């Protein structure tokens, strides 16, 4: 007992900044949960869900170097599991009005958290069957197979009317509005990913990304390691999909077009392939950025009545800003770096040095 206390004390001594940061973060979430309006709440929830799914994608694509494009399909499985198992039984007849729900499912209703975890597990099982043949191969096969899979799963869900209600979709899913669900789970997944990446497994993932032959020569089991990463990624994505369904309160197959995957691809490329903090930052930048630019869609932006201020302009401006960022940060905002205390201290010193250097060179001009 005393030993544990000692080691805990030593750990806190070493990582006190992180511990303080976590406490502040939790307080921040608690405050935000009390005071933000439903519009902001929705956007923040969406940010957290994007963090979860993008992180899962980065684990496979950025850390293990396996190009997987199945996010939309995996999310669909998680979302539908939550939808099918949490819709109140009494409203099912009204939802499945064209074809009644399959009898073996019609009377099962699970608590949200159970359905959520089940969604993750089902997604991981499906991922196993895709990964089993594909992860043995090298090259682009995984990308092709997962892209194909994500389209197949959408079409399957469209046609299994007695389970998923086909194209009509499912509504009346009990919604979550508290920030604790999304941010809590996002936080758990971020911590789990950090621990995983810094473990033996994480180093094995990275070694595969860098050089498969060298990794194999060092005794890393390629298939097993790739599969581990792929399954964990799929599990997290399934959870993210389940939260997505519960946030919107409705699912239908059209939500899960493969274009959804590109959202997450954008986030991880923008944040940096192989950076956890980069992914988190990029998720917030992309989600908040699109909403913040909405004023460009209104006819009177900046008090000017110009015809270019019409719906769609914000997407043009947003794409332009993305291009600029990618142009200047070729490896994404964070590259493969992490936002650690050391990293920030170093950046701060570099910034101070540069500003100081400029000041001596051109006295007044550097101030702006």
């Amino acid at each position: 007992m005393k030993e544990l206390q000692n080691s805990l004390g030593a750990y806190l001594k070493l990582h006190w900044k992180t511990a303080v940061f976590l406490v502040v973060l939790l307080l921040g979430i608690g405050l935000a949960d009390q005071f933000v309006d439903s519009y902001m709440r929705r956007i923040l929830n969406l940010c957290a869900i994007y963090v979860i799914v993008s992180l899962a994608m980065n684990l496979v694509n950025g850390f293990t170097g396996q190009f997987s494009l199945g996010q939309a399909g995996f999310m669909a499985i998680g979302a539908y599991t939550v939808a099918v198992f949490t819709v109140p039984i009494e409203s099912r007849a009204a939802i499945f009005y064209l074809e009644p729900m399959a009898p073996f499912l019609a009377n099962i209703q699970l608590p949200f958290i159970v359905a959520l975890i089940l969604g993750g597990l089902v997604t991981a099982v499906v991922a196993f069957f895709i990964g089993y043949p594909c992860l043995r191969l090298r090259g682009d096969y995984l990308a092709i197979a997962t892209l194909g899979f994500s389209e197949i799963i959408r079409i399957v869900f469209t046609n299994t009317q007695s389970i998923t209600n086909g194209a009509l979709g499912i509504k009346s899913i009990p919604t979550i509005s508290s920030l604790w669900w999304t941010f809590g789970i996002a936080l758990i997944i971020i911590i789990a990913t950090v621990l995983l990446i810094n473990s033996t497994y994480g180093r094995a993932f990275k070694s595969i990304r860098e050089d498969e032959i060298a990794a194999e020569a060092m005794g890393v089991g390629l298939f097993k390691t790739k599969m581990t990463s792929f399954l964990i990624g799929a599990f997290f994505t399934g959870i993210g999909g389940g939260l997505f369904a519960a946030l919107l309160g409705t699912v239908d197959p059209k939500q899960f077009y493969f274009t959804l995957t590109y959202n997450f691809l954008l986030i991880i490329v923008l944040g940096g392939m192989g950076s956890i903090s980069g992914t988190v930052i990029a998720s917030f930048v992309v989600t908040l950025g699109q909403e913040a630019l909405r004023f460009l869609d209104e006819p009177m932006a900046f008090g000017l009545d110009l015809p270019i201020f019409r719906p769609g302009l914000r997407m043009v401006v947003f794409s332009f800003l993305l291009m600029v960022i990618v142009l200047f940060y070729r490896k994404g905002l964070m590259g493969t770096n992490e936002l650690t205390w050391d990293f920030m201290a170093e950046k701060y010193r570099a910034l101070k040095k540069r500003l100081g250097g400029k000041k001596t060179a051109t006295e007044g001009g550097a101030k702006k």
Partner: protein
Amino acid sequence: MKKTLSLLLSMAMVVTMVAGCSGGTKTSSADSDVIKIGVFEPLTGANAAGGELEVEGIKLANQLRPEVLGKKVELVIADNKSDKAEATTAAARLIEKDKVVAILGSWGSSLSIAAGDVVKTNKVPAVALSATNPQVTAGNDYYFRVCFLDPFQGTVMANYAYKNLKAKKVAIIQEVSNDYSVGLAKFFTDSFTKLSGDPNAIVATGNYNTGDQDFNGILTNIKAANPDVIFAPGNFTESALIIKQARALGITAPFIGGDTWETNEFITVGGADVNGAVMSTFFDDTNPLTEAGKTFVAEYKKAYPNSANIAAVSALGYDGYMMTLDAIERAGSADPVAIRDALATTKDFEGATGMITIDANGDATKNQAVIKGVKDGKFTYMDTVTID
């Protein structure tokens, strides 16, 4: 140099973000002699064409009747990008940031369903314009609609097939990935089997997905079943291709469908083969059903002199706006809950697309539909059917 520029650009991004947020709060604290109505439509993305047409109708109605209760009505238009997640945030934004008292839209049932929870929890009424899926209003006291539903349209076409075309055997081709098409096919099947009294009246059913190009497999099956009529509700491009390929296979049975066919693309893709195709729709500009319809047509032609024909969804946009204003007037206040109660008791409201009475579900009970056909490469008015 590069670093400085990147710093400047990121500063610019931050500034625009701040401007965006502060801009939003500025409008929300606007003076109270303006009544704000939110318009929530897909103006970019896959459904942009439909959303644009509805907004046209709403704007026209706003020009004709810019005031209610002595206050100016301001339209706040929010784009939902044809995306469900975006639809919920757009609706929440209209309610929270812009403080609208009612919402009109959206084109596409699934987008309206996604916003349903937001309007219900925030107690702001919404009026769907062309969303025909029963789930939009089911179980939601705050969602209303001005169009007729899939069941009604299915019944209309089943009656047409049975009475006018004297069909005994029908084949159905449905776009299985489209909720509208699946719903229509189901209700057509129900009412046709009831009308004909023959449980086996539907001799063949074919399913296809949005974006399919080759329908020969489905059509070969249908040819073998030899139906009198083929009911094929679905997207206009695919439907036109189906008719083309059916004629090439030697199928001579007439094709009937729903209101989604009424687009120019249907005729340009189908060419001469779609002549004789018949569909039901909400509205026809050459034969308006009501006085309000005549006013709408005249004003529309004045406002948009270059458009060849008036889309039914524009007329529905017009009706949605007018009905909401009527409700605000009857409620005597711009309180969202009072407006909801007034909307729920709408009775015999004269809209451009017919008389509207809101039933207990929040749906418009309409008993009239327009039958149109393609004749010499043009949509021509054929008949107005009334069903009790």
